[in-house]
């Protein structure tokens, strides 16, 4: 049997304990708006909202596009969302469903399953955009 290195083992055990225990440390107790009112722009642009939706939502909320017959598709266009959900691809989609988006990201029910949820910054940006009247090229 090989000689066991004591110091590395202790360091790794310490690292594993840190990885396991650090999450127990108390996080902050403020909302992002309380902590830093200027953390996101007061008047977010549609482009800023689109960047978030395009990355976090559109990969699953795809619609019946022009390649509906599956010319390139290698997988069925199934969705994790309900059958009657509309896609979130275009400006019109996003503006029309903005309140649903806000509700589901606010209570962390979307993205679903174990996918990482949106950050406080992303949520606040979308909320401010909606409060601002959801300015967009299509609206």
């Amino acid at each position, binding site marked *: *049997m*090989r000689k*066991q*290195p004591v110091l*590395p*083992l202790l*360091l*790794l055990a310490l*690292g*594993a304990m*840190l*990885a*396991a225990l*650090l*999450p127990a440390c108390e*996080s*902050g*107790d*403020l*909302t*992002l708006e309380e*902590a*830093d009112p*200027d*953390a*996101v*722009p007061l008047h977010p642009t549609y482009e*800023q909202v689109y*960047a978030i939706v*395009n*990355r976090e939502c559109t*990969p*699953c909320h*795809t619609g019946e*596009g022009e*390649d509906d017959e*599956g*010319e*390139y*598709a*290698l*997988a*069925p*266009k*199934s*969705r*994790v*969302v309900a059958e009657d959900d509309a896609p979130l691809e275009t400006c019109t989609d996003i503006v029309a469903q903005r309140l649903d988006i806000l509700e589901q990201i606010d*209570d*962390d*029910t979307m993205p*679903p*399953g*174990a*996918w*990482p*949820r949106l*950050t*406080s*910054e992303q949520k606040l940006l979308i909320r401010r955009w909606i409060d601002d009247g959801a300015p967009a090229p299509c609206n």
Partner: protein
Amino acid sequence: MQLTRTFVALTLAALSGLFAAATAFALPQYAGREGRACDNCHVSPNHWENPKTADRKCSLSCQTCHVDPAGGGMRTVTGRFYGRATLPMIATSPRPTADWDRNFPGLGRRDRATSYNDKIPHGPSAFEAARAYNDSIRDAWAWGTPAGESRHAPFQGRYGDLRADPVLRFGFDARFATLISEGTLMFPMQFDVGTAFHPVHHMTLYANVGARGRVSGYSDAIDDSHTPYFREVFLMTHEWPYQAYVKAGRFVPSYGLRLDDHTNRIRRDFELDGALVDARVTGVEAGFAPNYPFVNASYFKSSSKYEEPDPWDIFDVDESWGMALNAGYRELGWSAGASAITRRRPLDEGGDSDTYGVYGVLNPWYYRRGLPITLQCEVDYGSFQRASGNDANRLVTYAELDWLLWNGFNLLAAFDFSDPDREVANDHSTRYQFGGQVTPYPGFTFDGRVRALDVATPEGDGVDLILQLHVWF
């Protein structure tokens, strides 16, 4: 013990019926395991003459198995050998002798490639002897011999019949996934094609083109905003003493444990998500790995945090710069490292950020036969600028325990924790994963995991099952 049995039962239940599958990057867990036996990476080292340190090619660093020294993507001949000899249930290159009795029940001791007698294949014992092994090449997927000679290039014959140091080689990784959550979602996850052109020793041009799959298939991957793109493209000088290299081009900076799970917070939270074009930077990286310390350092320019760079123009960068350092010591049974990455950008491009991390891998198998487990963990802490210009801090941790039940059959338990803004309440999350990987044959891995996310809002907790087929070469 009861807990172990429960864990095994739950995992097997999760895997039953699907034989999910795999990850065949030389993941950190694979590198952590390699050190237990030399013949994981090349044929049995009988009569081997240990070269001086400057000439040695033995290392547990990413560059041993991957063309990109920072890890991931196309494999070197060592990575290919590992993928044929050690990783699968049925080996097509000689199985490490220590693993002869570790085959899946019912598969028997023998497999396709292993000779269970004194005719264990072994390669050249020194650089001068390697030339005699040119006749051994039976490799349909790699061509040519680079001009010149190098004592620091892989020796022909040490990797069975694989071409050790080809002029041209292609590789690919494709993943197909099924996600079962509130519904069932099937989608292609990844398609990468890599090419390494190595006409002369010490010089390689590497390009890896990848496409992101979507629910609708790869179709979205070829429209305007989701085109395939250069994941990596760089010119590299390598095959130098102490495994030194310098590369210049587009790449993901070397930092921490390079996991293949792009949703993992130790990658995603620090703009190192391997699936995204915006994780790529353009710059220069240099490093070396002289048995067994390692250092990788890079200077780069990146694009705005809020804007995807041009998929093909690797010089599409903004007014920013950054540096990354990844260094440590990788012993045969353990490794420990520290990483740092700093980015300096105007506020409207994402602002400044500094991240520091420590990580380690422990391979008890090296010290005790019959203990085939691997433990890896990472802790990262960093500061970043909000859009207001004010500083904030974040904390991310990761830990994973792997248990290689049989050759080609791995179980894992993992968790990652993220608090993306330490000042803000209820924005943290913890994710637990239980599952495993099965590699029945070289080139095919099934990966299945039950994942549970715990967030601050009770209604936001979620569970899913993700199954992947990973086809790799």
